[in-house]
């Protein structure tokens, strides 16, 4: 079973103390203080792909769109069991939206032989939850998003569980080749040791620029995008906890009202 896994390198902004500052262009952020990591959901996708190729004989190809620094996440995926990698790197790819990003991935993946393409179901920086499904349609393949379980049930068939609200699972059958976007919590990602990552640098990372993809300049980057993020802004938000005043009867009313407003109750 051959699996292609798309991995993204993102800034680690999960900690509440990490500040995100918009840069002077308004379309980017100051990355100087960020540490960069593999996108969480992609990490789970890698961990879902490796056992499949181990159990059913095959190869895992790691695909990434990013500059040389993104080799950090590519090598981590290779260290965990990936066999080879493709990194799409070109300045003209910058500011690609969902569509342009998926188009880039399709150009690298379209010619490969695979049974499944896996992506993480969501990226922690832009939160689109869309590239994988967009990619599927571009490759004219069936897909399933928010996947929480994968089982091989036949030569060209998978039984897949999709996670819905409230933890409900939608179980379905899907034909391969297909695209699955993987939800966090589907497995327990292994650790890639320092020595292991160093050893993985012997595996091939093929770098593709715009010419290598066969796409034209107006198909990538902002030119190739149809929904463009034109400007960041700072949301109006409070800092410390808003303390609700009053006795228990009063504060419980206030709190339950807030919870209802937020759709949490």
């Amino acid at each position, binding site marked *: 079973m051959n699996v292609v896994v798309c991995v993204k390198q993102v800034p680690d902004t999960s900690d*509440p103390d990490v500040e995100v500052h918009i840069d002077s262009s308004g379309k980017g952020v100051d990355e100087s203080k960020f540490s960069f990591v593999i996108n969480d959901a992609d990490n789970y996708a890698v961990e879902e792909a490796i056992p499949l190729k181990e159990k059913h004989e095959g190869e895992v190809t790691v695909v990434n769109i990013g500059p040389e620094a993104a080799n950090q996440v590519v090598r981590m995926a290779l260290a965990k069991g990936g066999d080879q990698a493709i990194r799409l790197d070109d300045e003209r790819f910058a500011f690609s939206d969902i569509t342009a990003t*998926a188009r880039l991935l399709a150009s690298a993946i379209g010619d490969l032989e695979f049974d499944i393409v896996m992506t993480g179901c969501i990226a922690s920086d832009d939160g689109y939850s869309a590239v994988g499904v967009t990619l599927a349609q571009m490759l004219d393949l069936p897909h399933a998003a928010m996947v929480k379980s994968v089982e091989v049930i036949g030569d060209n068939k998978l039984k897949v569980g999709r996670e819905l609200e409230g933890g409900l699972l939608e179980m379905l059958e899907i034909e391969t080749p297909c695209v699955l976007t993987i939800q966090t919590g589907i497995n327990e990602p292994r650790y890639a040791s320092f020595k292991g990552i160093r050893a993985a640098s012997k595996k091939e990372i093929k770098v593709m620029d715009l010419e290598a993809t066969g796409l034209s300049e107006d198909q990538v980057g902002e030119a190739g995008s149809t929904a463009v993020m034109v400007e960041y802004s700072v949301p109006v938000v409070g800092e410390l906890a808003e303390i609700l005043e009053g006795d228990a009867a009063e504060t419980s009313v206030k*709190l339950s009202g807030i919870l209802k407003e937020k759709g949490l109750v």
Partner: protein
Amino acid sequence: MHDIFVLAEHREGELREVTLEILTLAGQLAEQSGGKVTAVLLGSGIDEYAGKCASFADRVLVVDDPMYKDYNSAAYQQALVELIKAEKPHLVLIGNTGQGVDLAPSLAVELDVPYTSDVVSVTLEGDKPVATRQYYGGKIDGRIEFKDADVYVLAIREASTPAGEGGKSGEIQKIDNPVTTEVTVRKFLEYVEAAIGEVDITQSTMLVSVGRGIRDEKNMPIMEELAEAMGADLSASRAVVDAGWLPTDRQVGISGKTVSPKLYLAVGISGAFQHVTGIKGADVVVAINKDPDAPIFQYADYGIVDDLLKVVPALTEKIKEMKG
């Protein structure tokens, strides 16, 4: 003509609230543009939903066919493509939900139209939509502008617009299934509920978390009642787990689990660093603690400084009242 399509979302005998939220949003946009709001309802045996949608829309297009009995994005997409090609709405709004993210992006590609997702607010500038989304976990907002197109597809975040009161009387139009060929590449099997008794708090969407402040095991029942009233799972700080009042798999923190619920209600938890690092994925944090200097208030969005033994039962009662 700037009509807006809203795909109704239903599951296991219920029309999901997000449908009414997005219909309300569509109504607000339609007022601006002078267009009509059409709820699109695909399913089997769905008359009861049509009536509900009709009070929020100018028209309800119903395709009632066994092909759509259970959600299958491939089948739904086929139908929507036909309907959209025929009716040519200006905006197509779908919930950014478990169903929506599985359908909207590929729909947009098949129609070859602009798409963006997880939109928290939409406005019309001229006749083009402009969307606002959140980036970096909500730390900053971004403005999305679209290239010119005849149709735009947007996936709207749940609870970003409150559902209004309705009050419209939309015309319900039952139409024939525009699709004749069954989808074979993907087949719905069944829904599976999360197993009872096996709680993986890392997957919980709502957590009520118990800390040392509860003082005694005999006070645990009030926490259990609150969690049940809220439809939440119980989690705990290490002190409570060490005391044996909750099992180790409920422990949140650096040597326990990292959780990312929509709501984390920390009760009697001081907010020690080793604990709060486990809740950095939480969307909304509420803290109840009788110590006004407890560090948890630095991490919480809302706080109540009071004795939990007083607040928790009062809160449970209010929530039960609200749920009716």
